[in-house]
């Protein structure tokens, strides 16, 4: 019957919506990246790529995503597994773990800055314990390593909850009977995790990974708060070109680069974590 048209009907509202509120403005902006005074040009990309900060920003962004996303996934999986084994009090624990969800990246940046800044809580604690005599400049420009670490920690703290919620919701849908069968057939808790949870959770993992990776490529506020300009990232550069340098063309080029790497990673996740139709429950 409508079998063939139904999916399109279902997608229609979202598609129309996105066409008006995303695709249209997006095309306008994208056009700026590849044009100058109405003529096609790649100059803006050249300007962008030629700027001395571009490679740093690019690799910093990648590095950050590579450091943050896998840890978040692992941590969230771990937490979600703990959740499924909890009895009483699960509600409370879950709530606590999802608290960072409600905290904006700006606020998270403030919080973590309060920890890492020179007169911050970390130094207060360390000097209180007598570990250090002088407050350490964790975020000083020479300490690229600790800056990176601080950003990674803050990002992990802030955004693991998103992954956690997606995974916990997904885990709740896995019928217990499969765990029971696996258990009877000799699977240790670890094996049950790798052989049952992970494969059956594939759609949720895929979703979480895609969303997190995309968000990781857009990280901005936390980095600015903690690292300032010491740790340039693509999104920060985009912002900078758009508003401080007021070169919308180059800013749009940056945005397209962010978009391109996001799509590339998304495609990888879509392919590698695909669940064949026949293997769906």
């Amino acid at each position: 019957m409508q079998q063939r048209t139904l999916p399109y009907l279902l997608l229609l509202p979202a598609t129309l919506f996105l066409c008006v509120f995303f695709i249209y403005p997006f095309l306008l902006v994208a056009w700026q990246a590849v044009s100058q005074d109405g003529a096609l040009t790649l100059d803006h990309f050249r300007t962008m790529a030629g700027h001395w900060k571009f490679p740093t920003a690019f690799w910093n962004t990648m590095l950050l995503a590579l450091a943050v996303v896998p840890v978040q996934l692992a941590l969230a999986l771990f937490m979600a597994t703990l959740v499924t084994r909890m009895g009483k009090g699960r509600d409370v624990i879950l709530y606590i773990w999802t608290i960072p969800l409600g905290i904006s990246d700006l606020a998270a940046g403030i919080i973590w800055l309060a920890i890492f800044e020179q007169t911050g809580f970390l130094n207060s604690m360390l000097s209180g314990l007598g570990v250090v005599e002088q407050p350490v400049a964790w975020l000083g420009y020479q300490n690229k390593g600790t800056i990176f670490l601080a950003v990674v920690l803050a990002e992990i703290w802030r955004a693991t909850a998103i992954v956690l919620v997606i995974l916990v919701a997904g885990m709740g849908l896995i019928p217990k009977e499969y765990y029971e069968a696996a258990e009877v057939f000799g699977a240790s808790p670890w094996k049950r995790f790798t052989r049952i949870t992970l494969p059956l959770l594939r759609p949720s993992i895929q979703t979480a990974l895609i969303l997190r990776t995309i968000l990781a490529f857009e990280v901005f506020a936390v980095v600015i708060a903690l690292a300032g300009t010491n740790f340039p990232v693509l999104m920060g550069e985009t912002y900078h070109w758009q508003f401080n340098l007021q070169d919308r063309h180059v800013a749009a080029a940056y945005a397209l680069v962010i978009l391109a790497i996001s799509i590339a990673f998304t495609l990888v996740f879509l392919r590698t974590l695909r669940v064949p139709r026949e293997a769906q429950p």
Partner: protein
Amino acid sequence: MTAVTARETAVTSADIRKRGRLVFVATIIILCAWVLAPIYLLAINALSSPEQVNAFPKSFVPGFETDSIAFFMGFAGVARALFNSVLVAGITMALSIGLGAPAGYALSRFDFRGKDAFRIMVLMTRAFPLPLLALPLAVMFIRTGLDDTALGLALVHTTLALPFAVLITFSLFAGIPVELEEAAWTLGCTRLQAFYKVVLPLVLPGIAASAVFAFVISWNEVFAAAVLTIENRTLTAFLLQNINVSPMHLKFAGGAVLVVPALIFIFAVRKYLFAMWGIANR
């Protein structure tokens, strides 16, 4: 196996269980601490006087000074901004679920051409920096009169929240046996009714997750809110957009004022987030 070794194994395994339990509880506590410690620090700072905030070494107990918080609460228009925020977040939630859930359903139940293209399109909205889109959107809104309305801002926030709604509902719909739906069809449901009566309750966690994300995204979004609302500022645009250039104690107080409602919201929906019907039989 002899009885002796049997007893031994029984004992040791009971022991292991006890130890495992301990490790389990300890891990949970550590993780809770990891999450709560920064929040606690935020609370300390928000509840301290400016001097305490700027002191070194810092105190790890709050000074219980509510001046900074009171400063924000005393702002004229806070109540209205709060109302706007809730309104915008509410519309965003409704729109993103209303638009996203059907799309997620289509992605999970059908194989059709353009499926991946659609997914990519949805994700692009998330992968493209919003500040660049704000200008054309603002122009469009000013021209159409959507400017400075809760609906207008909610539309933009929906663009941000929609990918979450689509993907999350998709991944959870994929876990619901089609057979339950089929049963509903044979019992007189249209596809839509089956969706609402059978699928939706079962993916309640997914819906709740999407709702939370939509809410939180809208709640915390500053840029579009700052550009697209003037009279009808949201609380975030009202308080947060200048927080970076405000003195420390106000930064924290402002942060805290913004965090609390979001936490209340999550608290309110938490039980749906993890509602489990035991699709499993037992």
